[in-house]
């Protein structure tokens, strides 16, 4: 049956803390990779309306932030955060239900694909407008402070392209002024849709923006899960310890199209062959094997388990009721009696 996201999917050979969390993270990455492959195949089969956006190559960075947070923290994932969502606690079913429009999903068919979340549980549902989630996370953290709740960290993710938005700037500055425990994770995947970094920014390194906000910055090779876990763990710790907002720049290459409709023909072949072009999942796998943290057969078992979990979830979702316009409550307001509907 469906794996509960609260439990750690780990049964590793060695018990060192590092290897434990590495393996746990690896399994979320694997699950993310496989579920996105499944969704992409459903898309190709015409089963999904609208776009499909996968995070191939970004799982290490995403899982690292998702698993560095803890229950009670705030997380606003973005387009390519399937792994982080799972690690933070989003049920796998939420993903499928939202993509497939199930009435039982958190968005009930009203919103789709990556636009899902559970705000009551600290996971904000992104709106499409890039940068818009950052001030919202800042506001969540202000609320915690007003309410006297200590020790919360809020994290959110964006791409290289999203750093060009005014929303990013205003929110980072506001968070800095308020010294909020906000971790801003930037996946510098070299492209914003088809636009290469050279047309997006010309600073030496995106981490140079940190000084302009008076906040701490971190850079990490985002093809390396170990490095991601370490860096994001530190950033979250520092935020939690009161050192204010943390800007983390993870460098990698988007290993898929912008969406499944896009063949990414424009990606520079030199980048693909560079260190940035490594597949973080493969790199993690190699690391596990060479460290002898798990045997190849174990990895195969995990793959199978994950696949099974996905198949079960798809089988379940596909039988669920779709939204029905006649049963739909066409009312945008919470205050029903003020609705003009």
């Amino acid at each position, binding site marked *: 049956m469906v794996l509960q996201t609260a439990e750690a999917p780990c049964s590793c050979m060695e018990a060192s803390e590092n290897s434990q969390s590495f393996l746990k993270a690896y399994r979320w990455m694997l699950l993310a990779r496989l579920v996105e492959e499944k969704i992409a195949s459903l898309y190709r089969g015409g089963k999904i309306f609208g776009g499909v956006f996968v995070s191939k190559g970004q799982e290490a960075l995403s899982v690292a932030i998702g698993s560095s947070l803890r229950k009670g923290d*705030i997380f606003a994932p973005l387009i390519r955060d399937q792994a982080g969502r799972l690690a933070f606690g989003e049920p796998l079913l939420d993903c499928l239900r939202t993509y497939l429009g199930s009435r039982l999903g*958190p*968005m009930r068919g*009203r*919103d789709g694909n990556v*636009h899902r*979340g*559970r*705000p*009551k549980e600290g996971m*904000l*549902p992104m*709106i499409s*407008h890039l940068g*818009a989630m*950052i*001030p*919202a*996370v*800042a*506001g*969540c*953290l*202000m*609320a*915690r402070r*007003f*309410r006297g709740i200590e020790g919360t960290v809020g994290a959110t993710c964006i791409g290289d392209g999203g750093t060009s938005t*005014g*929303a990013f700037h*205003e*929110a980072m*500055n*506001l968070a800095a*002024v308020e010294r909020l425990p906000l971790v801003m994770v930037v996946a510098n995947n070299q492209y914003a849709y088809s636009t290469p970094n050279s047309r997006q920014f010309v600073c030496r390194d995106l981490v140079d923006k940190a000084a302009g906000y008076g906040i701490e910055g971190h850079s990490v090779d985002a093809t390396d899960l170990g490095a991601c876990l370490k860096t994001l763990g530190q950033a979250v710790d520092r935020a939690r310890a009161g050192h204010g907002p943390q800007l983390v720049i993870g460098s990698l290459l988007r290993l898929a199209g912008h969406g499944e409709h896009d063949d990414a023909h424009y990606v520079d072949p030199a980048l693909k062959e560079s260190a940035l072009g490594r597949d973080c999942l493969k790199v993690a796998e190699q690391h596990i094997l060479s460290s002898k943290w798990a045997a190849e057969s174990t990895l195969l078992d995990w793959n199978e388990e994950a696949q099974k979990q996905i198949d079960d979830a798809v089988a379940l979702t596909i039988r669920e009721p779709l939204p029905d316009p006649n049963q739909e409550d066409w*009312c*945008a*307001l*919470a*205050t029903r*009696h*003020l*609705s*003009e509907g």
Partner: protein
Amino acid sequence: MITYLEAIREAQAKALADDPRVYIYGQDVGQFGGAFKATKNLAQEFPGRVLDAPISEDAIIGSAIGAAIEGMRPIIEMQFADFSTVGFNQIVNHAATMNWRTQLPCPITIRLPSGGTAGGGPFHSQSMEALYAHYPGLIVMTPATVEDAYSMLLEAVAIDDPVIFCEHKYLYYHLKAESLPTEAMPTGKARVARAGRDATIVTYSAMVHESLAAAEELAGEGWEIEVIDLRSIKPLDTDTVLASVARTGRLLAVGEAFPWGGVTAEILARVASEGYDLLDAPPRRLNAKDTPVPYHPNLWGTHRPTARTISAEMRELLRR
């Protein structure tokens, strides 16, 4: 005597006192008490709950949304309504869609110092209510009296949905009342500001007073003009409007905003479709002119409707 502006301050003081979830955020609202002094002394009276914001309207509104998700009830002051264009995306796409998308309400109140004053010019005079009313998921209040400014702002804070609170700058000092109300009409109900039987003016905010002055002028000519104060334009109280038109048979809708679309179009559209048979003459509308709001008082006084142009328009209507 208490002014419209003081009523807004008092409502915020009461909201802060009554509900620990309330805080105020906006440029210069803290120690300074706001550009118009609508938060005067509140930072002192409620330490840590009235905060100065950077010049970042998008982030200000975005942060309010996050805070609302986490159980707070922020009151946001835009320094002028006109600057809400910079926070527009967060208002219409984030705050307004939250409840419908997630079933989690987004109780934020956004105060927009609205409308024209002499010398305000194109960027400190706008009436943006129709923009916000167009988007699903928002409530748009347009109080025209000291009492409503007070009670509707309290209601705005209590309501679970995002409320765009259009307070009129011209009324800030011009309007005074004896005391603050203890009871109030609920939002969503329009008020008959003056009873009449020959024709109905439907209007809101500062134009209520120009319309009342026009009605007074026309009373001297023997006409009894009914003036309806909509109070909120979303929801818009069609029933009260239709009931009035049923009595008078004639409708003039007056608004201070730009002429294309806007509140007056919505009123005429509703009355034409739902109260067609009640009309004895073609309904009319009077809006500002289709240019930016001019700076010089000579131009401004002609750009927006006034008692004089309202009564002229009404005489045309009564002639039909």
